[in-house]
């Protein structure tokens, strides 16, 4: 039975032996832990994710990072260099392809071959496991900023081993956030274990004096996720990581669209994560925040997409996010060209710089929204801990099974999938169907009242049609979905 307990080192090593056999690149001599420690120790500060984040937070500025990855190594390096130079990226990613995410390394290998043959990337990301430590080293050696693996891999153990040994100083993911939105029928017990492993490796490096950054994946399904739900997942994954020895954590949140709710979310994310880490006794974890530019469906038009990107940048900067993940004007169409990706970065960059001296002022509305988020998160964490009889890992498994916590639009069968979100009259994300979500009546009444207000304005009932309208809304240029007539396309 899984528990939130640090994995004993011997158990880890035993497991490790097995993991490294999952694909041929696992046998690289560079995966020797001492060699990896050496390499990581020799990474200069400006290529260390954790250190650069500390600096940014101290200066109160917002760093930018794109998503990007292609099938072929040389083209991937070129892409990274381009985004550093022409996108002015402060951090680089390597978005991993979807076969690798499902541990289908043979499919990925085929994808590489097919891409070589056709001269264009047929994979939607960089197959880091197939290229192994040697390939990943080449990437980091050819750039001048820290690099991170970004994926969506339920079982990222081999991937994690490889990237850290190569000198990549951050890894995105978590046992919940890389399961529920990214898988269909993988158990939470499994993914929690997988990610305990990934975190334990980072904890090991920490023991050797190497600070690596870990980033629970914040936006989940990217689709109308109420802040308290994604916050709860972020906080839980932070605690689980801290238990394994992680010392530098970036918690994330995906833009909702209402400016005040987004600022409230960013501020509470920082406050609550710190609060709960300390409550659980992890006193030396350094926390930063990452804001994701709009994660739902984008407008088809490139100029409008630039508008969405820039609006997100404004909110991130005024909300003092330490980092922001950017989108591109190609978002609605497909994986962006490097040029389009860099355009999104540059629009984002100038806004983070123009507004760096500014902060969103406190107000009654902001305070109320923050209070509400805190109340909700507290309720969710209490319920999860309670159903886990004090153990967070158990709580997660049982909490999801019972729908005490529930993520809208998730593909996973581990998720109850009973709640339905919708926007209120100001575009704030609220909940219209609660399923078994562990909210008390007070909280539910608050949500219902807000939605009723919108319903009245729009002269219709609160219903799933509102949710559907809201899912489409941003791609059609509004935040609050307008009632559509059936049979009439918008």
């Amino acid at each position: 039975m899984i528990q939130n307990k640090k994995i004993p080192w011997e158990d880890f090593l035993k497991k490790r032996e097995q993991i490294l056999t999952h694909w041929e690149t696992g046998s690289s001599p560079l995966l020797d832990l001492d060699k990896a420690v050496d390499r990581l120790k020799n990474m200069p500060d400006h290529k260390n994710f954790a250190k650069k984040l500390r600096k940014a937070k101290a200066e109160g500025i917002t760093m930018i990072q794109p998503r990007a990855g292609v099938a072929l190594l040389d083209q991937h390096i070129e892409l990274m260099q381009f985004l550093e130079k022409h996108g002015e990226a402060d951090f680089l990613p390597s978005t991993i392809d979807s076969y690798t995410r499902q541990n289908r390394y043979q499919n990925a290998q085929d994808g590489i071959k097919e891409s070589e043959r056709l001269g264009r990337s047929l994979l939607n990301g960089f197959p880091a496991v197939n290229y192994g430590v040697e390939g990943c080293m080449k990437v980091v050696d050819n750039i001048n900023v820290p690099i991170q693996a970004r994926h969506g891999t339920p079982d990222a153990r081999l991937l994690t081993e490889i990237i850290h040994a190569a000198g990549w100083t951050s890894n995105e993911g978590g046992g919940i956030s890389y399961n529920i939105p990214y898988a269909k029928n993988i158990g939470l017990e499994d993914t929690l274990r997988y990610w305990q492993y990934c975190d334990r490796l980072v904890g090991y490096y920490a023991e050797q004096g190497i600070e690596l950054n870990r980033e629970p994946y914040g936006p989940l399904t990217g689709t109308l996720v109420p802040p308290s739900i994604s916050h709860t997942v972020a906080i839980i994954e932070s605690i689980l990581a801290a238990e394994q020895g992680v010392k530098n954590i970036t918690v994330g949140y995906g833009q909702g669209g209402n400016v005040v709710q987004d600022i409230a979310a960013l501020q509470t994310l920082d406050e609550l994560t710190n609060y709960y880490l300390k409550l659980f006794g992890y006193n030396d974890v350094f926390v930063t925040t990452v804001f994701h530019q709009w994660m739902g469906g984008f407008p088809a038009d490139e100029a409008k997409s630039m508008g969405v990107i820039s609006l997100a940048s404004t909110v991130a900067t005024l909300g003092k996010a330490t980092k922001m993940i950017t989108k591109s004007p190609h978002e609605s169409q497909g994986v962006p060209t490097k040029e389009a990706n860099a355009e999104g970065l540059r629009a984002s960059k100038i806004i983070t710089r123009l507004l760096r001296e500014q902060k969103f002022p406190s107000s009654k509305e902001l305070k109320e929204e923050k209070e509400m988020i805190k109340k909700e998160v507290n309720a969710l964490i209490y319920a999860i801990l309670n159903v886990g009889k004090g153990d967070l890992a158990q709580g997660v498994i049982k909490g999801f099974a019972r729908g005490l916590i529930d993520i809208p639009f998730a593909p996973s069968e581990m998720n109850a999938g009973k709640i339905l979100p919708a926007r209120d009259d100001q575009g704030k994300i609220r909940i219209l169907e609660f399923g078994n979500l562990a909210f008390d009546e007070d909280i539910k009444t608050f949500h219902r009242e807000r939605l009723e207000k919108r319903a009245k304005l729009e002269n219709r009932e609160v219903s799933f049609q509102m949710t559907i309208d809201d899912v489409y809304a941003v791609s059609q240029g509004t935040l609050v979905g307008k009632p559509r007539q059936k049979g009439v396309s918008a």
Partner: protein
Amino acid sequence: MKTVVIGVIGADVHAVGNKIIDHVLTEYGFNVVNIGVLSSQEDFINAAIETNAKAILVSSLYGHGEMDCKYLRENCDEAGLGHVKLYVGGNIVVGKQDFKEVEQRFKKMGFDRVYPPGTNIEDAVKDLREDLGE
């Protein structure tokens, strides 16, 4: 009531569009068999056989559509589903490509209808009615 199979092919987990297609087609009076995300070609074929479906609507969002859909037409034909219409939509290739060209590529692969990114599913209802007969 005509039966249609819907689902998201390959290692693709984009669930939002799938849920909405389900809802909308059901509203329009189709008998929707939704096999969900992360579905293989076999999943689609088996569902179509079992439910005597008239059309398969493949969604592919994540970019690997070109690889995942290879030989789907042939495999359907082999399974005795030669009469079943094949539709595909979503973001079916990697990157922003000329859609006319992409459409050709998928038509050559045997798809009856190919839809560009952001297609409103209601626009496909007309096609479905036409192809399946009212």
